[in-house]
């Protein structure tokens, strides 16, 4: 909850003005029944029609002030909520962008998305209603009780005595109903998950003719959801009848006690009428307050989830650029020195990795899925920090670089890399200072230029979300042009050719070789053909370097490599 107040604080003066405007508007609402009672009890007995009309006009004026005040105050409240929300969302998104990859893994992308979308939305709503109902309802409740006290303290006490009952019912329903709704929500999520599963597997279900079986499975879940919703609904359905019941019993008591008091000369009939109206107002205010509490509790957990993001500091510590740690120029361009790493801190995913690479050389990394190839890239680009050992680029520990400077050396294509919902040129340039000429050069080198020029608007054509209007191979070629367009010092291609046929793959590799002699290239692949012309190939097996050398050497010395190679070349060799 602190979070909400913290972000609203800068707008405090505006909120105070808003509260005051709201206050005057709400007081006017409260005044009206009082005037009604006054007319009936004081003015009418004098039979002075002019005064009745006078007081009537006062009521109309009050009504106008009320509507103006409340509308203005609501508008101010919305603007405060808008301005607080803008900053809160920007801060949260910035925080997410600054998280390290490890932190993103820990949070998981889907919770980050839901925190960014539905949680901020919840908070936006509570910011609005808090200022609106949160001010109005207490004023109506307390003000209403005060006004009724001045009218008739005894009747007021009767009215107040029903409130605890109301509170009990509301608390009971909330306590029982909210958990019931939560279980219903969960069941409903399970149901949606099941349907999603059926849709994605529709071919398999049809191929195996399992439609009836799936229908049965769905039926059980459907029943479960319906049962749970029924339970929750029936509990919640209690609120309105009980509210009405209390309201009406209160009315009866007020009339009866009022009759006694009028008979004793302690009160007047007009006041009873005013009471009936106040009672309605007060009960409604109570109901708003309880609703506010429910919203608060929901927003509270949202706020907590956002606070977690805001508090998370990137665990990749950035080094000042000024820090001129000595460069050891005798070192090769890229050096892995006894690097070990573990994602979860228990089991090592990489152990004792050591290798070096000269500028302009080509490195191939090959190995089975899950052997740790991508992890090497993740460490080199400092998405994660090594557990032990050191990595040097250009004679300097990568932890001594400014992260931005370090990463700008790279051009990279990852497994499952992403195409943004934007134009082709924006996807290749990615907001960097890249000339159109260089962009096209990159597209040509990655064999996608001809496809792009066939598209309706060439380089300005729009790509669908996740590149859905491209084939797998086109996507990979687009990503490769992105990586090479910036003329990177180090080019990383992590399994970037799995959807390419061998011919295109070979052509692209040739083009890349011709593009820059100074570019150091790292290719992660499953195919021997993708790495066979590399200056150095390392074979990774279960997190360790099983062998290192060029193609010919490995063929002779490394059994795993020889096996992979012979399997891929089939019987022709």
């Amino acid at each position, binding site marked *: 909850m602190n979070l909400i107040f913290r972000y609203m604080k800068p707008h405090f003066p505006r909120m105070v003005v808003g509260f005051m405007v709201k206050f005057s508007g709400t007081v006017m609402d409260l005044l009206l029944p009082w005037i009604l009672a006054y007319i009936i009890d004081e003015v*009418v007995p004098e039979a002075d029609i002019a005064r009745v009309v006078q007081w009537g006009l006062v009521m109309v004026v009050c009504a106008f002030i009320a509507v103006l005040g409340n509308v203005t105050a609501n508008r101010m409240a919305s603007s405060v909520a808008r301005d607080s929300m803008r900053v809160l969302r920007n801060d949260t998104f910035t925080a997410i962008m600054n998280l390290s990859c490890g932190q993103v893994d820990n949070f998981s992308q889907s919770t980050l998305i839901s925190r960014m979308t539905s949680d901020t939305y919840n908070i936006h709503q509570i910011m609005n209603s808090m200022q609106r109902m949160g001010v109005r309802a207490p004023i109506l409740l307390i003000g209403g009780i005060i006004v009724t006290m001045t009218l008739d303290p005894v009747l007021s006490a009767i009215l107040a005595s029903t409130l605890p009952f109301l509170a009990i019912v509301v608390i009971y329903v909330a306590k029982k109903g909210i958990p019931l709704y939560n279980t219903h929500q969960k069941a409903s999520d399970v149901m949606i998950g099941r349907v999603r599963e059926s849709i994605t597997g529709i071919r398999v279900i049809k191929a195996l*003719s399992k439609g009836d079986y799936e229908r049965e499975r769905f039926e059980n879940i459907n029943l479960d959801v*319906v049962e749970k919703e029924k339970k929750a609904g029936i509990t919640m359905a209690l609120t309105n009848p009980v509210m*009405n019941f209390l309201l009406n019993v209160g009315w009866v008591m007020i009339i009866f006690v009022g009759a006694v008091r009028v008979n004793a000369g302690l009160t007047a009939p007009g006041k009873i009428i005013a009471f009936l109206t106040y009672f309605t107002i007060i009960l409604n205010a109570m109901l708003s307050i309880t609703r506010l509490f429910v919203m608060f509790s929901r927003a509270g957990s949202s706020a907590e989830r956002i606070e977690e993001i805001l508090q998370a500091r990137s665990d990749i510590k950035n080094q000042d650029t000024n820090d001129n740690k000595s460069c050891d120029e005798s070192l090769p361009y890229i050096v892995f020195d006894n690097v070990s790493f573990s994602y979860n801190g228990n089991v090592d995913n990489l152990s004792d990795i050591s290798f070096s690479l000269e500028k302009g050389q080509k490195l191939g990394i090959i190995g089975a899925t899950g052997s740790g190839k991508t992890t090497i890239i993740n460490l080199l680009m400092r998405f994660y920090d090594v557990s032990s050992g050191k990595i040097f680029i250009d004679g300097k520990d990568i932890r001594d670089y400014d992260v931005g400077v370090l990463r700008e050396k790279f051009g990279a294509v990852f497994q499952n890399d992403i195409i943004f919902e934007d134009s082709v040129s924006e996807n290749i340039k990615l907001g960097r200072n890249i000339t159109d000429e260089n962009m096209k050069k990159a597209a040509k080198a990655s064999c996608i230029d001809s496809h792009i020029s066939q598209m309706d608007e060439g380089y300005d054509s729009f790509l669908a979300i996740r590149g859905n209007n491209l084939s797998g*191979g086109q996507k990979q070629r687009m990503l490769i042009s992105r990586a090479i367009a910036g003329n990177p010092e180090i080019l990383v291609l992590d399994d970037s050719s799995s959807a390419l046929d061998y011919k295109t793959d070979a052509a692209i590799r040739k083009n890349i070789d011709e593009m820059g002699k100074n570019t150091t290239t790292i290719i992660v692949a499953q195919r021997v053909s993708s790495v066979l012309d590399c200056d150095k190939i390392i074979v990774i097996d279960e997190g360790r370097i099983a062998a290192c050398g060029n193609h010919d050497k490995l063929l002779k010395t490394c059994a795993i490599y020889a096996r992979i190679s012979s399997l891929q070349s089939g019987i022709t060799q």
Partner: protein
Amino acid sequence: MAKTGADMFRMGPKIAKGTSAEEIYKNSRSINKKGTILRLSKYLMRYKYLMAAALFLSIAGNVFALIGPKLSGQAIDAITGTGQVDFKKVTHYCILMAIFYIASSVMSYILSVLMIHITQKCVYQMRKDVYDSLMKLPVSYFDKHQTGEILSRISYDIDTVNTSLSTDLVQILTSVITVVGSFFMMLSISPMLILIFVVTIPLSFLITKFITGKTRPLFRERSAALGRLNGFVEEMIGGHKTIKAYHREENTINKFKENNDDAVKCYYEAEYFGSMTGPCVNFVNNLSLACISVFGAVLYIGAKISIGDISSFVLYSRKFSGPINEAANVLNEFQSAIAAAERVFRLIDEPKEPVDKPDAVSLSNVEGKVDFDNVSFGYVRDKIILKDISLSAKPGQVIAIVGETGAGKTTIINLLMRFYDIASGKISIDDKNYRDYKMSDLRKSFAMVLQDTWLFNGTVYENIAYGNENATRQQVIEAAKAAKIHRYIESLPDGYDTVLTENATNISKGQKQLLTIARAMLLDSSMLILDEATSNVDIVTEADISGAMVKLMKNKTCFVIAHRLSTIQNADRILVVKDGNIVEQGTHQELLDKKQFYYSMYNAQFS
């Protein structure tokens, strides 16, 4: 292949804009509305007696509640002044009030419970109908419709209908009874005072019309802006690593700020007008209160009405204006429920897969002879993808299909399984048109391993045995062993009983594929389809399971699609597909000798 369908879907709304298509859509909608309501009521009418009870309860409950204010007025009239109160009357009326109000509250509770029961029954039935329909829809439907869209039919839309049925129906009935009832009650109290509403009701209509007119486009804009923002967030969080790799954080944050500005601004504008409703409704109420006070007082002075009458009138006027102020809201909700119901019904009514012919024969003891005779096909009618394809496979032969991405390899498989119907030509199995067989028999005669593996939320065991309920545990384990996945399964916390969940990150793509291979091994089918079946399995494992694959393929007619040409060199026949045509066919050696397309593909891979 799913792409073309999806593309068309994406283009759809774009084209429809600005053309008369929108008009047509509107017209057809208004025609459908009646039908939709009728159909919805059919769901309800299955519970005739319950509905009748609900109707009775809501009428009785509301009428009882309406009598209250009148009684309270009479009680107040008995309170004339100091020492003159007629306690007998007051008590009489108070007790009556209490009885009526209690009865009304009890009835309204019973009514709510009853309505929840009825609507939940309807919702259950609707969901079942939707799901049944989903199971019967052709695969092409799922190409054209995004999963999220279908899911929102079965969850969000049905929920909307549900809320509307359980609350709006009662609300509308209550409103009508209350408005009519209060009107007559007020009329009976004072026909003069009722003239006040001549002023206030048009006023409240104007105000709500103004507000809804303003807010509706604003709310639409607001959800659109929020949708854009959410889409952006989803995309950027998904691309987190890429953004970091290219050091585009700053850039992305700035783009986000633009989107966010837009979203909060739209929220603000919609909220601003939306939040006017409450105070404005209050204003009209206050205005009528002022009018009633003044004119009531004047009439009282003229001895036309009593104080109790004024009191009752005030209470009735609140009851009276309540539903009128709410009418716009309720109608809106009801309308959106009708629209939701219509979407649900449309899904239920989607054309299903063709039913088996009445004289369809069952397909057992398949030999496995497959013939394509001049088959043409396109996912979109006027965009033919496969042109005049002819091929024939003898029982037990291995047919490999090779070609570049998008050449139409998977399409041939889709036709074989009858996921789509061919545009022209003929496909026969064992020399009989495949449409003459029962669909389920036809499909069961194939076993299939695809590139996109599908595992469901269940145990490993259930997933392997999915296609063969009669498989024994021993057989399942044998299959897993043959697919070289047994050791991995044993390493899982609960072995074969480990539940695979949607976000089971500990299982790799390759392992998933091995599980589906094990699944296929349990099927007793005479034909086999392998569509990039080992594309995610690393090469060493692939070699390890090659023996099992050979066994799996033994005595079956096999259709194999593979990128790695090494895997298909032993095929009896290799078909080379290019742009929807079979450009070459023959054995590996024959095609190499031809030195054409296959030859160049092969050399590219192994040079």
